[in-house]
């Protein structure tokens, strides 16, 4: 564990009982967790190497309660860590000793579905899948689909601008949210955007999406709904080299075809997933692409034929089209289960760097070298269409030395991504994990501009502090 948390405010720790009592009076309907065992549940997120017991945990059930809690914390200089389902892989929801965890997982209501505007108004604690389930009967779905979609909340998706496998066609969260109700740190409630497209004035929505809970707490959102296509079908393309797979991806896009998804798995990932799900993946290839297209049966046939034709120029070892809905579901089940499957075999540290697509072969090659240098195995599963890599560094979490080495290995991989023209994180967020690497990508002036924005919304930096910006970074005067 190489990353420190900010020093707690001793005065706040000393007033813990008083703060908890006041909160209990202030929001009697909210669930307030103060005992150690209860707080233990919230001590970490999906970056489990880092843990910290918060001052207390509060689970409100309305925007008004969120507002009262934030106003109280603001007046009393108590830090607040917003949280949804706690699936952040970057420590974005890691508590602080002197902070209240504000968990929105009880706010799960679907408030309205509007077929004419093709939007749904939902509370921020609803799960990603929950939105699609709620609108499926009307023939719609909510497009962003992160791997954790069964558990993760829309609020968390907004915080990290989540993507997923199908964002190559449909975009990420920022492209699929039209409005939010935001509670500022001082308790003020502000509506940004809504039913209509493109809010007037500055694009505050773009700032809120991806701000990792540092600018305000989103309690409701208006999301864009997409009509379910007539059909969708993937094809599996196996290759003997990662280079061939990577150049095939570029060739498909250059040919004017933008599939809904192009997923990449390397040999270790293929084997683990096939063993876990029996999805029918070929085991004798170095790289596997799952390429999915949508449309009517004829459109799908046409596009898959085109894609297979392009693939044949890159010497595929396997070309296998899904024959029916069951096969398609199984192919995706394997991909979506990948992280879990690998997790059954080994602890892993999941990276999230992004690179320009043309640098894919070089990036995979270098990542292999870096991991060998640190004596780790690595599995690669990622969204190839948009260059968002997810190398999984396999290590033993019970060995603190290995953890530290894995972190160094990961940092080196992310620096490589930036050197190749990419960025540190595509969809997981900076959180605590990549905080100190921000100077790799940004200059002082770049980061200071971002920090000034933080100060606009939260002048005292009480909201999810210690994340995103390097710890020594202080709000500029």
């Amino acid at each position, binding site marked *: 564990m190489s990353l420190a948390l900010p020093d707690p405010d001793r005065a706040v720790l000393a007033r813990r009982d008083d703060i908890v009592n006041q909160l209990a009076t202030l929001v009697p309907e909210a669930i307030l967790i103060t005992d150690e065992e209860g707080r233990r549940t919230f001590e970490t997120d999906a970056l489990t190497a880092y843990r910290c017991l918060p001052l207390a945990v509060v689970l409100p059930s309305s925007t008004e309660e969120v507002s009262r809690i934030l106003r109280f914390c603001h007046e009393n200089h108590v830090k607040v860590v917003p949280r949804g389902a706690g699936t952040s892989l970057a420590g974005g929801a890691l508590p602080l000793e002197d902070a209240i965890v504000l968990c929105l997982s009880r706010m799960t209501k679907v408030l309205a579905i509007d077929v004419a505007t093709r939007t749904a108004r939902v509370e921020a604690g609803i799960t990603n899948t929950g939105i699609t389930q709620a609108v499926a009967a009307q023939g719609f779905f909510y497009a962003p689909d992160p791997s954790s979609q069964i558990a993760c909340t829309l609020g968390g998706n907004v915080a990290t601008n989540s993507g997923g496998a199908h964002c190559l066609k449909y975009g990420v969260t920022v492209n699929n949210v039209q409005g939010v109700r935001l509670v500022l740190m001082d308790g003020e409630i502000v509506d940004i955007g809504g039913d209509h497209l493109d809010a007037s004035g500055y694009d505050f929505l773009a700032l809120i999406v991806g701000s990792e809970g540092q600018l305000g707490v989103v309690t409701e959102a208006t999301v864009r709904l997409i009509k379910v296509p007539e059909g969708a079908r993937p094809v599996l393309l196996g290759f003997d080299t990662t280079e061939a797979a990577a150049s095939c991806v570029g060739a498909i896009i250059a040919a004017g075809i933008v599939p809904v998804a192009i997923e990449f798995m390397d040999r270790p990932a293929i084997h683990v997933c096939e063993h876990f799900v029996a999805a029918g993946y070929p085991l004798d290839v170095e790289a596997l692409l799952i390429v999915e297209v949508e449309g009517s049966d004829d459109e799908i046939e046409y*596009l898959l034929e085109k894609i297979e034709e392009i693939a044949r120029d890159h010497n595929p070892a396997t070309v296998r089209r899904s024959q029916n809905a069951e096969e398609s579901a199984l192919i995706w089940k394997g991909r979506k289960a990948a992280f879990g499957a690998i997790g059954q075999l080994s602890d892993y540290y999941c990276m999230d760097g992004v690179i320009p697509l043309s640098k894919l072969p070089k990036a995979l090659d270098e990542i292999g070298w870096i991991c060998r240098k640190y004596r780790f195995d690595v599995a690669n599963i990622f969204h190839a269409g948009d260059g968002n890599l997810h190398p999984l560094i396999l290590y033993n979490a019970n060995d603190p030395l290995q953890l530290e080495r894995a972190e160094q290995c990961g940092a080196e991989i992310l620096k490589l991504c930036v050197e190749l023209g990419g960025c540190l994180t595509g969809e997981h967020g900076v959180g605590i994990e990549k905080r100190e690497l921000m100077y790799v990508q940004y200059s002082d002036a770049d980061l200071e501009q971002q920090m000034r924005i933080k100060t606009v919304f939260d002048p005292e930096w009480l909201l999810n502090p210690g994340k995103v910006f390097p710890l020594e970074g202080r709000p500029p005067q």
Partner: protein
Amino acid sequence: MTGHMRLGFHAPETAEELAHLVAEAVDTRTPLEVMGRGTKREIGRPVGSGSVVSTERMVGVPLYEPSELVLVAQAGTPLRQIETVLAENEQELPFEPVDLGPILGYGPGEATIGGVIATNISGSRRVIAGAARDYVLGVKAVNGRGEIIKAGGRVMKNVTGYDVGRVLAGSWGTLAIMTEISLKVLPAQREIRTLICFGLPDPTGVEALWLAMDTPFAVSGTVHMHAGLAKGLSHPDISGAGVSVTAIRVENFPASARYRASRLKQVLAAYEPALELDTMGSRAFWEEIRTLKMFQGTKAPLWRISTTPAGASKLVAGLARKIEVRALYDWSGGLVWLETPPLSDAGAVEVRRTIAELGGHATLVRAEASTRGAIDIFQPLDPLLMALTAKLKQAFDPAGILNPGRMYQGL
């Protein structure tokens, strides 16, 4: 050329020169009017500055990777140049930017990409493809402190820090001056079909538009216009119809576009789509929508109103009871271009009152300078959002020298 006054006109060639210039303006408290080639200069409140800074000499496409769907352009690059480069590789800007130049007396394609992004003006495909801001991957800019800043990058996904690039989109040059923009581009549509219905009253026309959107056929253009506006278009069957015109576009590879059009015809049978435009006809029709041909050649006030499809025809009908209006509905009714009579307030009182009832926001895109100086051009914000707006402006431009007053009085 744009023909504006050259007095106090600065057109730096590099971000460094621009940064130096802004720093000097900060030191001397000189307000700067920020623009590209000035084709949208007459939108917004008059800035009232003797000093103009333009990006028109920052021209070029330093990076274009068709197989990565990425194009990086210098902010002053004319839109036409970017569209030409893209077309050579059968790609396009997916948000189909509306070209406001021709309705304001400038030539088509003259606008710069910086201006397109800074105003976040998206065209008909916005309804399915997203807005200009949705395609911004990263920017380089000079803020109001004279610092060169960058945000985002040139890759498809990026949540490394706050999304400063998208905030600059739609900020009308009031926060920072963009010098370089990375954009996501997409393959151009090869085959297009447009179904056209005639004589539908507004509520029925808009209903046909969102019924079309409620299909899985990726409908990418949905407009409905009053008879008087249709008269201004080139296609003889449309200009000569003498009734309202409702148009719905589908695109894709040839067989698919044809399939989608035939299925849509069934769905819309009750609205009697009497005309179908092929690819060439469609291109010509949608290009006229994109350049707002029906509003060219006059100086009548023109509003751009973002509302909901369900409220759009009510909004127009409500206004029509008070003042004479002509309306083009786009985005399946989510956007209304509304021409009002040359009243001294351009109809602002009525427009704002109606929007207050029905929701949405309105921007006065065309009006005489005297009108623009006297009324709110952009939708007035609620006090809390206005306070955040002022603070955000302060965070980028503490001296208040970039396009002061352009969007909001005193800001």
